[in-house]
């Protein structure tokens, strides 16, 4: 009884989170953002079935997301034209089926080998599909993409999915079941052998398994869920264009998964939420938002390869030992130094962005952290430089305290 409760409560909490979120963030833009988050959670988790679970780094995962979305949108248009009474709620499954079909097709080629060869083939297939999207205009719609109108599909128990809240709940339900399904997969014989392939693909063959078959099944599942995410995106935005299956989208899902943490199942969920949030909010605040993404990614690769989830798990372990307090003094010392280097870096980037990109057309006056500054004058540059260099130097000096605090913790 208690064990089934322990098993169930995280899922109940997740379901309540999905159900309750629109009560707290009810604005139209928040609902759109949360819908995108749900789609990206599925996409990032599907990517991590390959990278985190099976040890396959794909540079072309958006292919399955995008093709799923395109097939879904064509299916919607076809259903509207034929006036077939299929509700929009099953459309993501069409995307999933398309993702699966292309996953099986391309997986047969790309999963023959692991490691670098797999990555290179995924890159090649990604380029192949994204370049063909400019040739096959009737399917991909060229520059404008393909549009649809989801409200013209058959209503589902009276819901026509015209409002964003209805779409949000559609995404939420799909997202919940996809998370559950992908989690369940990790807890099966197949899921465990995926980990074994990641750890040592050679030895797997000496306990009876074909590593290639495991890679192929993992790849097919992964493409299926990516297709569902693409189908949901098609339903949400009612438009698909070639960008959504291109290299940038493939890079984005890698970024999300890695920053969230590929070593933990929940990592990509955190990454998808954080990056989607930043992508939408940051692009309103600064033109250099993509640069920040790049820096964030490099920062995680260098300093926190376990991602957000890895970082959180470390602190959870410390909290379980009731020793979190030991870290507080060191964190207190390093926090101002980190904050200063961060503020300095932001200042320098924003000033540079202003001077290099916008000064000629819009002048060098700008707002930085709420202050009016002139990017052409020395003052703000000097201040940014001092903050950044001083902050980095101070962090470098104080950081041994943090490692020391962690050391005292593990030995205790």
């Amino acid at each position, binding site marked *: 009884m208690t064990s089934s409760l322990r098993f169930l409560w995280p899922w109940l909490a997740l379901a309540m989170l999905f159900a309750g979120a629109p009560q707290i963030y009810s604005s139209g833009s928040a609902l759109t953002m949360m819908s995108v988050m749900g789609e990206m959670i599925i996409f990032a988790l599907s990517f991590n079935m390959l990278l985190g679970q099976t040890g396959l780094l794909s540079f072309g995962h958006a292919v399955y997301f995008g093709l799923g979305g395109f097939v879904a949108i064509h299916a919607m248009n076809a259903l509207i034209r034929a006036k077939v009474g299929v509700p929009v709620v099953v459309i993501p499954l069409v995307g999933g089926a398309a993702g699966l079909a292309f996953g099986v097709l391309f997986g047969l080629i790309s999963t023959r080998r692991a490691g670098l060869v797999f990555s290179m083939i995924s890159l090649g297939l990604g380029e192949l599909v994204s370049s063909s999207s400019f040739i096959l205009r009737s399917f991909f719609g060229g520059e404008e993409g393909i549009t649809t109108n989801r409200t013209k599909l058959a209503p589902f128990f009276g819901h026509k999915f015209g409002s964003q809240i209805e779409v949000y709940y559609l995404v939420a339900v799909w997202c919940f079941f996809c998370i559950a399904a992908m989690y369940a997969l990790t807890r099966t014989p197949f899921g465990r052998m995926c980990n074994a392939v990641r750890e040592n693909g050679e030895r797997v063959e000496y306990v009876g398994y*074909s590593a290639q078959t495991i890679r192929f099944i993992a790849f097919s599942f992964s493409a299926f869920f990516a297709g569902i995410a693409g189908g949901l995106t098609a339903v949400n935005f009612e438009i698909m264009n070639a960008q959504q299956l291109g290299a940038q989208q493939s890079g984005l899902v890698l970024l999300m998964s890695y920053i969230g943490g590929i070593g933990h199942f929940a990592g990509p969920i955190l990454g998808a939420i954080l990056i989607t949030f930043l992508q939408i909010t940051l692009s309103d605040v600064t033109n250099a938002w993509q640069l920040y993404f790049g820096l964030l990614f490099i920062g995680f690769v260098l300093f926190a390869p376990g991602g957000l989830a890895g970082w959180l798990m470390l602190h959870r372990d410390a909290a379980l030992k009731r020793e979190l307090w030991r870290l507080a003094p060191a964190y207190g010392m390093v926090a101002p130094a980190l904050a200063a280097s961060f503020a300095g870096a932001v200042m320098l980037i924003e000033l540079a962005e202003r001077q290099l990109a916008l000064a000629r057309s819009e002048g060098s006056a700008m707002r930085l952290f709420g202050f009016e500054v002139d990017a052409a004058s020395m003052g703000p540059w000097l201040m940014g430089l001092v903050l950044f260099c001083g902050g980095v130097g101070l962090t470098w000096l104080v950081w041994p305290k943090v490692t020391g605090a962690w050391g005292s913790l593990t030995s205790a």
Partner: protein
Amino acid sequence: MGVALALIDLNKSFGLTQIIRGVSLQVAAGERHAIIGPNGAGKSTLFHLISGRLAPTSGEVRLNGERIDGLPPFEIYRRGLSRSFQITNIFPRMSVYENLRCATLWSLGHKYAFWTPLDRLRDVRERTDWLMECIGLTARRDVQAAVLTYAEQRALEIGVTIGGGANVVMLDEPTAGMNAGESEQAVALIRQVTEGKTLVMVEHDMDVVFNLADRISVLVYGRVIATDTPARIRENDEVREAYLGQASGA
């Protein structure tokens, strides 16, 4: 008793270099057979040819009468032959328990199952617990394989090898790098876990070989120069000259 493993005129060349030169050998079911020989004699290559890591240039490998040469390793494993590695070859970032569990799944028929929850498989749990007990690592159940001691990793290597209950077990230098005490324990473990099975092992430690083996084959420059009982191998002049004399002189 029938023949468990037969090698018939087996050859392997890498380019112009011939590593295995016409090896023929029969291992009876239930026999403990050791392959000895100086460094570079081709013992590991012979293991790779039998277990499917390499395909022979010519010749046959038969497992219980059925040809297995040129098959991929997993196909050979599924026909009942399992091997260990000279350099420990396990799943480093997985626990002792997970390592052993992976080794049981195929033979218990769970294959690529993606619909059954792993933790509910009673047969897998029981077999894994039994294996862990066998190799003496029950107390280290949740420890990552990478951080085990060397002797523990070697024990785990054997555990993974026998996990699927293969009838023909091949061990590549199971006691290499162990001290006398560890080596003794390893021999006891090998004796126990290969009870009633066919064992083929490559081993450098002559005490281990003469202690464990029913028969010994001596491999020198890719040829088997003698196959006999330990006592008669000890007496064999050619073997002494090629190998044992060299060893005692070193």
